[in-house]
């Protein structure tokens, strides 16, 4: 099923969605959807008889900073029944980076959307568990954005206050070293 037939079928299921196709070099027909009707489009992709994309393989984001629209959320899905694949993308602008969650439609999207929030800062409205996944809970910033630095040098961070000052620690080490050499 090529991109044009997919879009026709999808447009029939969700008439108010804005869809467009783009050429692709691998075995995934690629379509762009707007974020407004995303839950309806996703539900149609999963349930419509000639689509049946029940398996969500990948949910990720590409950051095209400084181009606007900045983000492109990418959904790669597989239809086991019809043995086809599809790549659906949604464009988001940097200032207004949020869209509806699909974790109610594909439960696999739960952690994938958490990872996207963690690394890119895109908010998924209605997500049941919007926490960071890979970075520590108190991390600030979104590491995989293009304007985030690759290497960060920070002083060591502890959750409990240190019991000694740096000078006392050096003196302790020195006293310990001297006591061992006697």
């Amino acid at each position, binding site marked *: 099923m090529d991109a044009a037939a997919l879009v026709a079928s999808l447009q029939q299921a969700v008439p108010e969605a804005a869809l467009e196709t783009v050429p*692709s*070099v*691998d*075995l*995934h027909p*690629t379509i762009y959807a707007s974020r407004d009707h995303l839950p309806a489009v996703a539900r149609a992709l999963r349930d419509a008889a000639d689509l049946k994309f*029940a*398996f*969500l*393989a*990948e949910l*990720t984001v*590409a*950051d095209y900073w400084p181009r606007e629209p900045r983000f492109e959320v*990418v959904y*790669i899905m*597989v239809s*086991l029944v019809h*043995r086809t*694949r599809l*790549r659906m993308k949604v464009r988001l602008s940097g200032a207004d980076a949020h869209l509806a969650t699909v974790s109610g439609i*594909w*439960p*696999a999207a*739960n*952690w*994938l959307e958490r*990872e996207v929030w963690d690394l890119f800062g895109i908010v998924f409205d209605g997500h049941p568990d919007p926490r*960071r*996944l*890979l*970075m*520590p809970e108190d991390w600030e910033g979104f*590491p*995989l954005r293009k304007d985030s630095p*690759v290497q960060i040098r920070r002083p060591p961070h502890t959750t409990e206050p240190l019991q000694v000052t740096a000078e006392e620690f050096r003196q302790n080490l020195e006293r310990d070293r001297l006591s061992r050499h006697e």
Partner: protein
Amino acid sequence: MTVNMGPQHPSTHGVLRLVLELDGETVHSAAPTIGYLHTGIEKTAEQKKWQQVIPLVERMDYLSAQSNSMAFCMSVERLLGVEIPERVKNIRILLAELQRINSHLVWLGTHGMEVGAVSVMLYCFRERELLLNINEMIAGFRLFPSYIRVGGLREDLPRGFHDAVRAFLERMPGKVDEYEDLLTKNEIYLKRTQGVGVVSKDDAVAWGLLGPIARAAGVDYDVRKVFPYLGYETYDFSVPTQSQGDVYSRYKIRVAEMRESMKICRQALERITPRGVYAIADPKITPPPKDRVYTEMEALIQHFLIYSQGFTVPAGEAYVPVEGPRGEQGFYVISDGTNRPWRVKSRAPSLLACQALEKLIVGGLIADVIAVIGSIDVVMGDVDR
């Protein structure tokens, strides 16, 4: 009672943290925490040239290293639009299947040891030594060969490769029979694994778990059969499926997969000539052999350009799915037309398996937690990247 099965634990297959709420021995709820092995490989890959990304991605799923590098190279080759020579495809298939046997041996060894059959570990690692010796023969490295490159392979197969692989393939079927002798009809093993950690067919697909886990539940999906790549459609092999979806079915599937992989390896070995073409002939992508670099000017220039500035890949995106030992994996690669990737995203089957873990262990006993974690075969390097 809340119990922490901390990131440092012999049975969590890496650094996985589970906070379990127990009522006696029954698990009420489980909250997995991951991210202890996150090293930002995807961000680092954006700073490296295309060939330099290959050692990085090999270290993601560290038990199926050559699967990873093959998936990445295939995505990049799709963007480049190059066609790989037939001999290289067969060698890649052989290496991928040997890697599958390698990964399943580690899985079987660690899973058996966790469930209590401690000797299975040493039996499996004894055969794994032979596979690691084969890796060392082709590339010098045992675990992360970096032998599969964009455009083909790093260099031609060494002398003695065919004999080594043939010796391994002669020895292995008897050894798999030995492992089965130890576990398949073992009453203790059956009691610990049958009916434990059951995944239904619909749940496997809904939670994105395609691979041995879904095949154990009855979903007949293998990327090698449904979306064949590298010429898998010309090989004669079958894909085992079961229907119970419990830990025992996953065990049976992986042991059967080892046997099928050996079948494919034998067929691939017949098709590979000991010497021949090992990469595409494109001078911008494939470095020339070292003896020509030392004697010819053009080869020296070519070598210098490849290793200093690399090659450029046309702008676009590609995702080529590959059947790794843990399920469908692949690399979603975006290029902006320069000599560095714009985005590299690894589709990690272990991440989705970890997500499903919560639901699989709730309601079971604490001993079942160990059996289930072993059976879904998570590799934390792939989960955290």
